[in-house]
């Protein structure tokens, strides 16, 4: 599904002294199947933005279209929208409530009123794709480890079979290994299911490695929007709004400034290793 935001404005606490313009005329277009990284400083409006994507929040002005259809239209089916656009909120493990892992994951498909067999099938599939072992199906979700809980919570959204998957800081609070596992898992699911993914994150390193396109939020407005290398080329502007480019990218651009390498626009460790080792070998040969 393609998503279009047209001058979307959101104001919290309208008409009170706590009024806060959390989104200021945000416009963009996301094509079907894109992998988007949404980054921004704390309080820049990322969570507010994604809640508009499945109609949990309504914009105060502007329009949102899915596949060209306006979701504020009366005819637009909200239920289908919620099914098609899955949101995994920050710390989703705090939303588990059922007595067993299986039941918790089945909550979504059950709400869709699917036949029993279908529900079971989706539950198993979802748990499998997040790497939760079958032996854990019948235990209480509250007895799982933090990382496992988060996987189960993500499975609960995957079981709805969304066409667009939005994840708000899915790796927050996990150790490096856990972060990598979760992010790898998301990248894999996207490949397999061929869905649109929006990954919200503070971490440039995480985003750089996985996504195709980065959108940068700053104080409620969309400050930058482009491919990873396009956005990271604006190092100064990023630093001004409290973000930084990945450290490896800093190193590479310093090396370029020193005239040691030519190729810039490198932001993952892998690429950097490739370029640097090539350069070292060249140096040896000389």
């Amino acid at each position, binding site marked *: 599904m393609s998503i279009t935001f047209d001058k979307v404005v959101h104001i919290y606490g309208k008409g009170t002294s706590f009024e806060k313009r959390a989104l200021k005329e945000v416009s963009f277009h996301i094509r079907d199947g894109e992998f988007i990284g949404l980054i921004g400083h704390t309080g820049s409006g990322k969570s507010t933005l994604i809640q508009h994507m499945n109609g949990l929040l309504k914009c105060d002005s502007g329009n949102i279209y899915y596949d060209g259809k306006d979701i504020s239209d009366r005819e637009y089916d909200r239920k289908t929208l*919620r099914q098609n656009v899955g949101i995994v909120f920050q710390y989703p493990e705090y939303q588990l*409530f059922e007595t067993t892992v299986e039941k918790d994951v089945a*909550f979504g498909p059950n709400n869709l009123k699917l036949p029993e067999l279908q529900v079971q099938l989706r539950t198993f599939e979802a748990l499998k794709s997040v790497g939760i072992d079958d032996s854990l199906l019948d235990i209480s979700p509250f007895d799982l480890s933090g990382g496992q809980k988060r996987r189960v919570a993500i499975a609960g959204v995957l079981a709805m079979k969304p066409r667009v998957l939005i994840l708000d800081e899915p790796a927050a609070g996990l150790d490096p290994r856990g972060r990598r596992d979760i992010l790898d898992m998301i990248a894999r699911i996207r490949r397999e299911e061929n869905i649109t993914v929006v990954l919200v994150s503070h971490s440039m390193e995480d985003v750089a490695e996985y996504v195709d396109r980065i959108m940068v939020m700053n104080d409620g407005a969309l400050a930058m929007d482009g491919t990873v290398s396009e956005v990271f080329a604006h190092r100064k502007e990023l630093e001004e709004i409290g973000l930084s480019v990945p450290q490896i990218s800093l190193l590479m651009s310093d090396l370029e400034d020193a005239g040691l390498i030519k190729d810039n626009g490198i932001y993952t460790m892998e690429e950097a290793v490739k370029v640097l080792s090539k350069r070292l070998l060249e140096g040896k040969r000389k």
Partner: protein
Amino acid sequence: MIRDITIGQYYPSESVIHRLDARVKFIGTIAYIISLFLFDTFWGFLPAFVWLTVIIVLSGVPVRYIAKGLKAMLFLMIFLILFNIFLTPGEVLAEWWIFKITDNGLINAAFMVLRLMLLVVGSGMMTYTTTPSQLTAGMESLFKPLGIFKVPVHEVAMMMSIALRFIPILLEEADKIMKAQQARGADFESGNILKRAKALIPVLVPLFVSAFRRAGELAEAMEARCYHGGKGRTKLHPLKFAKRDYVSLILLIGFVVGMGFMP
């Protein structure tokens, strides 16, 4: 949204009323409330009305904000009006079937509604201008003498301030959880009462779990800072009377004494 409930909410400002000692405001509110019940003529409300107007103007709390708090009482007020209009005996002004509107009924209804409005707005002014922590500190200090009768004043005050502190947090949390379950297709808006109550389970369970988790964390954090009840505890910001507090107290006494001379 759940967050929009304003009744009894603090309105941040730097006004004289805001800076007043919580104890003065508390005593003032009590005196004000008593004054509302001392008289049964409209003239009796005049001093309270003037008093309240002065405080609202000084406090800088917008009238719209106050009116929002009154809106929550609308249902009760309508109830009060209907009861008084139809159930007070007196000279009949209009009659329809078993309903009779009497002159005394109209007067009574107006009187009661006025009293209720003055009551709600007046006590609201205290919570709009006093932070919960000041409020409980003030109450703790005022009720300290009860400690002689083995009333755990400090502990009760502490419990109150923690409860007040956690209300907005839990409301926000409930909002978050509701959204997350809605994203999984939960429906809180349709169906009969039983169905709606059942739909709340996916919200209430995580909410309780998180409330217990927070309570545990808070207890640990308090213990880690050597909290051991009220005995020998000192305050970072001890309540202290300033000039403005003495002035207001004198004005308050004047108000109360003046009331005694009212016909």
